Structure formats: structure tokens, C-alpha cells
């Protein structure tokens, strides 16, 4: 963010007229919409959100206790922006990109004080810059001019800022530089530093969007197997409290095969963010084996931090994601939870006394949500490359009621819907993604990838699983009335097969060392083993074997151990052989 020393150069001072929670009005302030201002004697950071005649309304990103009328307001003349450059990964920011570790040092206490500012990236640190272009080359906006090793996992690409004109390189040199030193000079006088700024409410420019055809492999069977998300796709996870939204989000952040993960804790619990901060540096990235933090940028605006910064943290996150996308990376952004973001909008809106829409949310709720999700996608980049942003938004519907405005407006936009179910969570079926309600519209466009990378019959076997689960759902209604034993034998057997699908395949233990991540091949093989049981069992049934004997074979319960088996290839093969042998021995 803009630093305190900038203030001196600005002369357009205003005076506070009124204060009500995070909303402050000021008179005589010469400002544009969305300008960042410093409010009061303590210089609290705020943003202009309404201008009416001489009266300017400001949302303040810090507590306003004790701030009163008559105190000054200073305009920076700049919109709310993020600092972009090497050093963002392995960091943890608040909602306006102030690094929380630096704040702790500056404030000297574990509690967040007011009026303390810090740049989003370290301005002192020197980075080893390696040029990728030579003097005399012509570069255009978005082109990569050099590389810096940001973390062990990620090479940070230094780009010509999108708002430059570009031209011929007149000077470039390798060596150690701080982010503010010029590394490249162009013939038109433009100088390129590693540090860029970009206003958060404006999408960074890119070329056309493409149809995503590659899955974001999450290592979670129910997601990869039944309801896949594409790299560049959008997904929503709505669910009542206690249904496992946060664990699901964290599993994605840990295991998905994105290059970069931006994790936004928006209005959630402090202890949860601490868990991420403590766990991620320890956990290995499944692709490289390096610490997970080396590819992760965390944004934490917990529920008790100022509400205005909760509104902005989503934008801060997506802008950082776009910056890495521009380097050609596949970025996954997790927002937990978008409902808190919507509620922050509602809170500010009601303080402005705006006419409310549905359930008190502002009328522009739907527009804000779709604007945010539209910043996801698989893009042609300005420099000719490709990059993607996948967005996964958690939704916390009040009372678990999916008909509320945030869930409904989100569902109109996203193409993957992972519905969390309190009933499943209560019986400790995790991830508690309801297979009857959830959907993914990416299935068809991702099938070719599965068929060429995992198994040729992927879409058939998946469809088989879906059919069995559907049939179980219908049969359960009858069972509720007459009991299981009153069903014909083949239907009883279907219920058994469905039980294995649920308990052995869909259920996955995030806390188990092995089961927590399931590669696509294993997802497929596990399903195939259940299908083997199904096929063999039905043949035995046709040959006249009673259903109790079939389900009693001792290889069958071992299907439940496939997920946690370390040597899964041989384990599954052995089960399949045993199943065949034992079931055939019955007739």
C-alpha cells in the first residue's frame, strides 16, 4: 500500500463530519470514487465509497472508536491497490495486504493496533534477477523480461506492466536488486521494476477466455470422480455450519495440482487461520515435495477484524491471483467464505442507508458476485501464453437454507456445485458432499482428459456409480416404509454395492496420512474394484446364491480399507482376485 510518507505531498485535506462504526463522512475533501484516504489524527486507512455534493463517505478499514468530527482526512489520490512483486508467496496478509507478521513486529503486541501501515512486499530485500530478453529486443505490455526465484517452487516472472506502452530494451542487466530498483529500461523512457501496483477493483487485462479442458486434480475422490472442477473453472461449496466447508477448502488448498494457491480467510475464525499458518509450512506440496507455503499466499481477515477490510479482502486476493496468472501459472483461489463478504457489503450498505434488496443485501449483490467469479477462467495472456484462475467459494447460508440470496446468486454463476450436507456430517461421512444435490457442468469437457490420462472407460464406470447411487436413493424410500428384508434380493444387493460406494469410495479421511490424498489412478482403481464386486456378486446371485452369503464373503469388507492402504495397487488387485475366487466358490 501507499506509505505514510506519501501523505505530505498531498494537499487536499478534508474534515470529518460524522462517524458511525466503519462509515465516516467528511466535508471539503477533493477525492474521486475509490480513492484511498487516511482518516483522523491516527491516519486510519479508508476508501471513498460515495460522493454527494461536498460530502464524501468513506469506509474505514480499521476500528473507529474514539475518532470524532473535526479530525482531518487526507487523500492519497490513489485507488485501493495491491503491491505486486516477488515476496508475496509464503506471506500472510490482512484484507488490505498488510503483512501480519510485519505488523506484529511493528506493533510489538499480539493484538492488532490501529494506524500502522506496512508495504505488501519487502522493499529492502534483494532478489537475484536473471534477464530473459536482451538489449535491442522489443517488448510489449505483459511480456516477461526476467525471472527471479521467489521460492524453491516458484520462479517469479518479471513482466512489463500492462499499463506501459512497451518498446525497445535499452538497458538490462543481471544481478541483485531490490523490488524498487529499475531492472530494465526502454527506449521510450519507461523503466521496469520488479514492483508493480494494481487497483484491486479492476481486473488485470488479459486476452480471450478459452474453454477449460484440464481438470484441477484435487486428490479428493468425490470431487475428482463425480463432480470435477476444471483449471479455470468456478465452484461453490455451500453448507450449514459444521458441515465441513473449511476442511474441504483446506484440503483443496493442500492437494490440488495448481501452481499457486491464494487462500482467503474472509470473516472466519482466527484459530482456523492459525492452523493454516502452522500447518502449511510443514506440509509437502504433493507435486514438488517442497513446503506448501512456497506456493501459497494467505489472506486472513478474521471475523473480528474490521468489516470494511473484509469487503476488500476478496478483491485483494483475486488481484494477486491475476498477477500470477499473467506469468502463465495455474492459480487456484479459495475464498472462505463469500457469505461473510456479502454480509460485509450488506453492513456497509445499510450504514449508507441504501435501499435494501432481498434479505437486506444491497441490490448490487448479484452484480458484485458475478463480477468476482468472472475474473476466474482460462485465459490467453497478453504475452501470448496461457494461464488460469480457478475459484472455489465457500458459502455459509443462514440456517443451511440454500434458497437464500448469496447461495442462489452464486449458483447462477458457478458451474460446479459441491453441496455440503449436515446429515452426512452428523454421521461423520466426510467429505460431506451430497451426491444427489451436487453437480458439475465440466464433466463432459473434462472426460477426454480422464480417458487419455487415466482410463479409457472412465465415463462409463463413473456413470455406473452415479446410477447405483441414484437407485439407492429411490430404494431407501421404500426401505423406510417396509424394511430392507422386504426387498427383492437383487435390490438388496444393489443397496450393499451402494453402501460400498458411499463408505469405501466417496468417504475419505482427511486426517489419515494416506487417505487424505487420492491420485486419479487410485480413484479409478478403487471404483473398478467395487464394480468387480458388483459384477461378480450379481453373477453369483443369478446362479442362485442367497444374498446373505454373497455379502458375507470376507474379501468384501476389505473394500473399506482401500483408501487407507499404503500399497494400494497390490492391495486392490488382491481384493479383486479374492472377491472373484470367493464369490465364484459359492456356486
Amino acid at each position, binding site marked *: 500500500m501507499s506509505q505514510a510518507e506519501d501523505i505530505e505531498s498531498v494537499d487536499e485535506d478534508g474534515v470529518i463530519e460524522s462517524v458511525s462504526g466503519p462509515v465516516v463522512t467528511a466535508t471539503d475533501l477533493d477525492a474521486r470514487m475509490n480513492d484511498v484516504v487516511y482518516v483522523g489524527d491516527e491516519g486510519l486507512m479508508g476508501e471513498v465509497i460515495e460522493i454527494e455534493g461536498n460530502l464524501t463517505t468513506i469506509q474505514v478499514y480499521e476500528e473507529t472508536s474514539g475518532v470524532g468530527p473535526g479530525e482531518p482526512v487526507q487523500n492519497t489520490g490513489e485507488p485501493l491497490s495491491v503491491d505486486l512483486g516477488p515476496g508475496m508467496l509464503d506471506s500472510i496478509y490482512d484484507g488490505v495486504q498488510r503483512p501480519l507478521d510485519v505488523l*506484529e513486529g511493528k506493533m510489538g503486541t*499480539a493484538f492488532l493496533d490501529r494506524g500502522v501501515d506496512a508495504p505488501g512486499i519487502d522493499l529492502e530485500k534483494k532478489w537475484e534477477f536473471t534477464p530473459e530478453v536482451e538489449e535491442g529486443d522489443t517488448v510489449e505490455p505483459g511480456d516477461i523480461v526476467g525471472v527471479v526465484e521467489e521460492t524453491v517452487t516458484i520462479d517469479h516472472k518479471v513482466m512489463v506492466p500492462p499499463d506501459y506502452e512497451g518498446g525497445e530494451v535499452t538497458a538490462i542487466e543481471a544481478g541483485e536488486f531490490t523490488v524498487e530498483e529499475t531492472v530494465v529500461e526502454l527506449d521510450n523512457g519507461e523503466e521496469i521494476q520488479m514492483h508493480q501496483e494494481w487497483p484491486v477493483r479492476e481486473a488485470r487485462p488479459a486476452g480471450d477466455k478459452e474453454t477449460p479442458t484440464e481438470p484441477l486434480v484435487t486428490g479428493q475422490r468425490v470431487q475428482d470422480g463425480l463432480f470435477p472442477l476444471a483449471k479455470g473453472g468456478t465452484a461453490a461449496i455451500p453448507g450449514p455450519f459444521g458441515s465441513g466447508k473449511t476442511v474441504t477448502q483446506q484440503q483443496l488448498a493442500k492437494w490440488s495440482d495448481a501452481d499457486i494457491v491464494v487462500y482467503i480467510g474472509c470473516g472466519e475464525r482466527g484459530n482456523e487461520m492459525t492452523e493454516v499458518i502452522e500447518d502449511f509450512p510443514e506440509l509437502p506440496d504433493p507435486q514438488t515435495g517442497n513446503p506448501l507455503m512456497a506456493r501459497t499466499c494467505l489472506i486472513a481477515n478474521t471475523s473480528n477484524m474490521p468489516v470494511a477490510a473484509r469487503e476488500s479482502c476478496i478483491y485483494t486476493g483475486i488481484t494477486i491471483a491475476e498477477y500470477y496468472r499473467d506469468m502463465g501459472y495455474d492459480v487456484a483461489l479459495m475464498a472462505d467464505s463469500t457469505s461473510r463478504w456479502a454480509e460485509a457489503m450488506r453492513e456497509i450498505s445499510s450504514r449508507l442507508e441504501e435501499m435494501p434488496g432481498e434479505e437486506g443485501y444491497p441490490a448490487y449483490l448479484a452484480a458484485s458476485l458475478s463480477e468476482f467469479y468472472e475474473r476466474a477462467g482460462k485465459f490467453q495472456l497478453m504475452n501470448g501464453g496461457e494461464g488460469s484462475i480457478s475459484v472455489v467459494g465457500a458459502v455459509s447460508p443462514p440456517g443451511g437454507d440454500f434458497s437464500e440470496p448469496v447461495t442462489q446468486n452464486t449458483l447462477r454463476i458457478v458451474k460446479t456445485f459441491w453441496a455440503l450436507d449436515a446429515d452426512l456430517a452428523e454421521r461423520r461421512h466426510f467429505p460431506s458432499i451430497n451426491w444427489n444435490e451436487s453437480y458439475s457442468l465440466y464433466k463432459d469437457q473434462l472426460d477426454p482428459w480422464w480417458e487419455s490420462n487415466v482410463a479409457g472407460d472412465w465415463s462409463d464406470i463413473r456413470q455406473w456409480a452415479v446410477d447405483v447411487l441414484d437407485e439407492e436413493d429411490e430404494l431407501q424410500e421404500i426401505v423406510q416404509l417396509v424394511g*430392507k428384508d422386504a426387498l427383492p434380493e437383487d435390490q438388496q444387493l444393489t443397496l450393499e454395492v451402494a453402501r460400498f460406494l458411499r463408505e469405501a469410495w466417496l468417504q475419505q479421511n482427511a486426517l489419515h496420512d494416506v487417505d487424505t490424498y487420492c491420485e486419479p489412478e487410485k480413484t479409478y482403481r478403487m471404483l473398478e474394484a467395487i464394480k468387480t464386486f458388483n459384477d461378480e456378486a450379481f453373477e453369483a446371485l443369478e446362479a442362485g446364491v442367497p444374498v446373505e452369503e454373497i455379502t458375507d464373503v470376507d474379501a468384501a469388507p476389505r473394500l473399506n480399507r482401500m483408501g487407507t492402504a499404503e500399497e494400494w495397487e497390490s492391495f486392490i488387485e488382491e481384493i479383486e482376485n479374492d472377491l472373484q475366487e470367493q464369490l465364484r466358490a459359492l456356486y
Partner: protein
Amino acid sequence: MKEYQTITEISGPLVFAEVDEPVGYDEIVEIETEDGRTLRGQVLESSDGLVSIQVFEGTGGIDRNASVRFLGETMKMPVTEDLLGRVLDGSGNPIDGGPEIVPDERHDIVGKAINPYSREYPEEFIQTGVSAIDGMNTLVRGQKLPIFSASGLPHNDLALQIARQATVPEEDEGSDDGDGSEFAVVFGAMGITAEEANEFMDDFERTGALERSVVFMNLADDPAVERQVTPRLALTTAEYLAFEKDYHVLVILTDMTNYCEALREIGAAREEVPGRRGYPGYMYTDLAQLYERAGRIEGQEGSVTQIPILTMPGDDETHPIPDLTGYITEGQIMMDRDLNSQGIEPPVNVLPSLSRLMDDGIGEGLTREDHGDVSDQMYAAYAEGEDLRDLVNIVGREALSERDNKYLDFADRFEEEFVQQGYDTNRSIDETLELGWDLLSMLPKEELNRIGEDLIEEHYREEEPEAVQAD
């Protein structure tokens, strides 16, 4: 300090006054009525020339001639270790007839957010001695775990039992008893009846807990607006004891429903746009500012653990108060009316209950290696038994398979032996888990698919367990 006689409007708990100098947001105000009473309030909105003030004690007796003084500071709580053993009213004034409180420090009651980077993740198991909590919904130090109850249910008995029995097992064995971190209870009552208050006080006195407790009492007939302040005073005290005096503090707040009603009352008086069911749109933020004041801080000895109690209007879990609470707190303990009428003590329904921090607070070295698996398996088995009960009502037990009947028996015994224990029984975590194995051994081994095979070998009771002792 300037004094004004410029009140222009009095409406519900709010007073509006004209001022000619700037007044800060949240500043404390004293209003003196003509008959010499002094009332305290807080600035809710401050604009050039006009402030709105929320009066804690209610606006009764204020007229337009009353004088208004702005103290130039936000509300502070005088804190000192001597507060332990004291009983205060909802505004922090002693009501136990004891000496004046001489504060060491005065702390802002709004409290600052703990930097998430500075927190330490809670993973120290607290043994409450209640099987339904220890075994199934483990509480850890620094957690906020509310009790979701409803009118007519014995949530107070459970809260008192926890306050009485809570220990951290390893520290019991430690030699330096009395040294190091001590345990303290901060009790914040909002709008509870005098009878309930007596029940709490009697128990505190009977068990000698009072000397390590600080009690804040806002009773049902005390001003509703004061309820806004009571929990903040309690939490400010708790933070002081935890992070400056190294205590492990257990904060019990009851009843959060009354707090939220007070919030709604003020919102309505200010003519704000209401959110769901008339509660203000900022209730989530407001509640979060209370509940998030729990936790541990890296490099600090003490901790703040919160057990807020709320009564769900109409037993409705989707009502905004339990709903918003559940989204902020780290789980919930759910009281159940049916179990209560069956005489189960405590009537905790474990299925909708949850402790989010459980997984990191249990297991080898913390509680026991089999804890997680046993709890998962019992959840799954009890859920299955519960489902089957509906079916039994229709088709009868005979129509069910042997397997189904086993699950039904399991569910019954789970309630009658595992959950049921009485408010004076203190079970160690070992007793709780062994009891769990007694019950799980009713089911065939192959059904225990959530438990590691080696653990089954070690703990499964091969023969039909004999009648298990009642506790």
C-alpha cells in the same frame, strides 16, 4: 470536561444531544438527572453538532434538562488480580459488599483483534469429566465451544459441572501444583433470573470455586442495554488474567440470547434497516467480536476458553442467534429435549454436536491413540441406530435383521450408559474410552470399519461383555 444541557430527543434507550465540540465515536458519557442520579452511556453516532447516546441504565428519569458530560475516552474496565473472588454487577461495580477495587490497569473493553499470525493453535485437551464432551466433542484450551440449549433444559447444570471438573490431565500429575498457570473462571450473566443467579452463586460457594472466579451479574430486571457491556467487561477481565497474569481462564457467558435481544432493541431504537427476524445486519460482526476473544497467544502461558450458553427460541437451530453463533464458534454442544425427558443427564445429543478443534487435541500423546477412531465409529453407529428407530416404529423390531437389531441396542445403550452419567460423576478420559469399547464390542468386528485393525485387536472385547457397570 464540558457539560451540556442540550438534550433534544429521548427515545427508548437513546438520547440525542447537541454539542459544539467534536465528540469521539464510542466515547463514554455521563448523564446527570435533576434529581442527582448519574447514568452512564456510550456514543453510538457522532456527527457535527449532534450525537446519539445509548444509555446503559435505561433512559427513565432523564428529561431535557439533564446535563450531559463527555468523558473523552472509550469505556474501560479496571483490572487487577484482586478481582478473583469478587461479584460485580453488569457494569462492573462490586455488589458483594467487599472493598473498593483498586485497579492495576484500565483496559479498553472493546478489545483488539488478536493478530492471526500471533495466535497459537489450541491443542491442549481439557478433561471435563463428561463423556459426551470428552469422548465425542473434545474441548481444548483456547476454544470457544457454546452450549446450544432451550428453555427448560439443564444447561446451567452442565456448565457448572464443566466449571467444576475441568482439568488438564498431565498437569494433575505435575509436581508444581499451585505454581505456574492457574485456572480461573470468569462468569458473565446477561439477563438471567435471580433464581438462576442464586443457583450459580450457591454452587460457586459450595464448591469453593468462587475464590478463583470473577462474577458479572446482569439480572433479568437490570437494564437491557447494560447487557451490551457485561460480556465485554467479562472478556476484558479474562484477557487480562490470561495474557498478563498467566491464568487459564474459562469464560462462561449466559445467556447470549438475552444479549442479542438487547442488540436488536438498540438497533430498532436507532431505526436501522433490520436483517433476519429484526436482528441487526451487523450481528455477525458483533458476536464475532465477543467470541473471537478466545484463544492462545504464542509465547504466552495463559489461555481464554469460552463456553457461551444460548437458548434457542422455539428449539430452532436455524434461528439467527444459534445460526450466527455456530458459524463463529468452534463447534457446539447440543442439548436435547427428548433425552432430557428420558432422564439422561446431561441430555447432550452428540449427533448435531461438534468440536472443530477435537482432531488436533486428541490422539497419541494427547489423550489416547484410539480416541479418534472410537469416536468416529460411535458417531456412525449411533447415527445408524437413530435412523433405524424410525423404521422400528413402522415395521417393528422383528422385521429387522440381526445386524439392524444390534445397532438399535447400541443406540439405546449409548444413551443410557455413555451419555448418561449424572452431574456429579467425573469420568477420566480412560474410563470414557473403555466404556466406548464396551459398547462397540456389541457390534461384530467387521462392522468397525472406521477403526484401525491393530486397535481392534488391542481393545475389542472378544466375548459378549457382561453387564457394564453404570459408570
